[in-house]
């Protein structure tokens, strides 16, 4: 059997194993190891199996992941979401759909710090949906808006997903953070425009709310200071040259703890819970990363991505056609995989292919992340939709999916913009001379 064919077989077996409920980390590592053994013999495969976990887990760059997760875990426990929602609501009060606008703004800010779409959606499901329903908003649209807005967290830096991509794809994390900021803000703006359009077309879905005096607006807006400070420490500090991404993550996580204690929103028990939650999440994530690296070793050995690139050249496919095909692949993967797994499973195969047709690794990181957000709210297994439904069992899943449709359209508008104008991604890193 040729190596290329072995690579194809490996991908097929991996998908079968995933369908058979084998844990993702195990499926990646197992298929990678057996495939490597088939390609290069048991002795080298066993040696590779013994060395990959050590090389990965002792990499300093990986320490950024638990520290950013910790910052999110502390922020989630420190009542920052409620204050943020009130502040965003004060800014939009008086507009039709003000509470939905507020949800989008608050999710964008909170998600940036939290770094997890599912945690953001779960948090705002408790904060925003009851408030919107109390004001007569349509439950399906309210839940759909929270599901979509929750996904902003994985694009707007600092983002755990981007940190993982930077390790798998060997790309600069500060550059990825800078590259993601503009697309993240554009997506938030597109969501706001979406709400505005829906409000014009279907005013019955979201009634008008009362306006607010300017003084009250400003007072409520001040509630954003905690997250603004954390964002400054976590992101701006890197570009001011104060510290590396790992140090930024540690300083902002520490600042989150200090703020949570100083404002009386956290006690020792809560802190211990945040640390333990982070430890468990780190182990679960790193195990998948190790599996992905073992699988990647096998894929590289088979030269499957190179063969795929040659095949694309032979067929004379243009770069845009290749990226559209990759987009379709991510759309399908996103329907049954969560975002981390989508990236870890696919990047070893897709990155060499898109690099071969002339795209940039940083641009592709942002593209893949945006595609992952689509997977999070698209049927049949949009993860954030399920999280919200679990917390609001009286809203049927189908109704939440209907509520996300308008936001899915906004996601695809952003994808189109990224393909048509790659400068959206490269502009800020260029300005920052990265």
């Amino acid at each position, binding site marked *: 059997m040729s190596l290329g064919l072995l690579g194809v077989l490996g991908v097929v077996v991996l998908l079968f194993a995933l369908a058979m409920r084998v844990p993702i980390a195990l499926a990646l590592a197992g298929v990678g190891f057996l495939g490597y053994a088939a390609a290069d013999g048991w002795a080298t495969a066993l040696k590779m199996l*013994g060395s990959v976990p050590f090389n990965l887990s002792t990499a300093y760059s990986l320490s950024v992941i638990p520290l950013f997760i910790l910052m999110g875990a502390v922020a989630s426990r420190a009542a920052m979401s409620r204050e943020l929602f009130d502040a965003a609501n004060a800014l939009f009060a008086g507009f039709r759909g003000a509470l939905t606008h507020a949800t989008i703004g608050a999710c964008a800010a909170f998600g940036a710090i939290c770094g997890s779409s599912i945690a953001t959606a779960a948090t705002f499901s408790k904060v925003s949906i009851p408030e919107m329903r109390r004001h007569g908003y349509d439950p399906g649209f309210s839940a759909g808006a929270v599901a979509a807005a929750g996904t902003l967290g994985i694009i707007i830096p600092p983002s755990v997903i981007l940190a993982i991509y930077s390790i798998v794809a060997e790309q600069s994390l500060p550059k990825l953070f800078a590259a993601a900021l503009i697309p993240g803000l554009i997506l938030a703006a597109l969501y706001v425009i979406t709400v505005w359009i829906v409000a014009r077309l279907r005013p019955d879905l979201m009634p008008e709310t009362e306006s607010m005096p300017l003084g009250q607006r400003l007072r409520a807006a001040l509630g954003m200071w905690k997250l603004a400070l954390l964002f400054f420490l976590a992101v701006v500090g890197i570009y001011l040259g104060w510290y590396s991404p790992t140090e930024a993550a540690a300083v902002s996580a520490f600042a989150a703890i200090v703020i949570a204690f100083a404002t009386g929103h956290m006690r020792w028990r809560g802190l211990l819970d945040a640390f333990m939650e982070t430890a468990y999440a780190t182990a679960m994530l790193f195990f998948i990363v190790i599996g992905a690296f073992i699988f990647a070793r096998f894929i590289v050995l088979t030269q499957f991505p190179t063969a795929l690139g040659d095949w694309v050249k032979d067929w004379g496919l243009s770069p845009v056609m290749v990226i559209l095909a990759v987009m379709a692949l991510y759309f399908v993967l996103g329907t049954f995989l969560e975002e981390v797994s989508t990236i870890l499973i696919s990047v070893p195969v897709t990155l060499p292919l898109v690099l071969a047709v002339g795209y940039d690794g940083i641009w592709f990181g942002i593209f893949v992340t945006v595609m992952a957000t689509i997977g999070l709210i698209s049927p049949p297994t949009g993860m954030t939709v399920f999280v919200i439904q679990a917390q609001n069992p009286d809203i049927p899943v189908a109704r939440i999916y209907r509520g996300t449709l308008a936001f899915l359209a906004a996601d695809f508008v952003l994808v189109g913009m990224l393909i048509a104008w790659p400068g959206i991604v490269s502009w800020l890193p260029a300005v920052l001379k990265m």
Partner: protein
Amino acid sequence: MKNPRDFVAKLCGWVSAAFLAAMLLLIVVDVVLRKFGLSPIHGTFELVELLLVCTFFFALPATFLRDENIVVDMIDTWRPRWVPALKRASAAAAVVLLATIAWQSWLQARNAMSFGDVTSDLSLPKILYWAPLVFGIAAGAVAAAAMAVKRGARK
């Protein structure tokens, strides 16, 4: 504590959380010292790497004990009766794979020890990095076996 499995999972979480807290404090202190023009902590990189490996591998068994490995669970809806058997098969596969990784890591750890490998800055013996790795993966295999037995008993 409901049962020994929960206790062991919590214990793993506590130990791992302690290493994570140490890593956080080490980096913050290092940054603060540097910002105030004082001499930074020598060998921070190597210490962070050591604490990272401890954070990860001491929590790994808990991933199995808490059944937190991410799976694609579409089959739960289509063929719910297959799920217990598939879970047992996955746990058995995890035992084999983790035991193999632990065995191979142990061989490489033994080599590192016999060659006297040390880190470049602090001259820490490399075996300090290998030990939590081998322990965590072997404990992960035992945890996966415990879950397989638990599922078997439940069935």
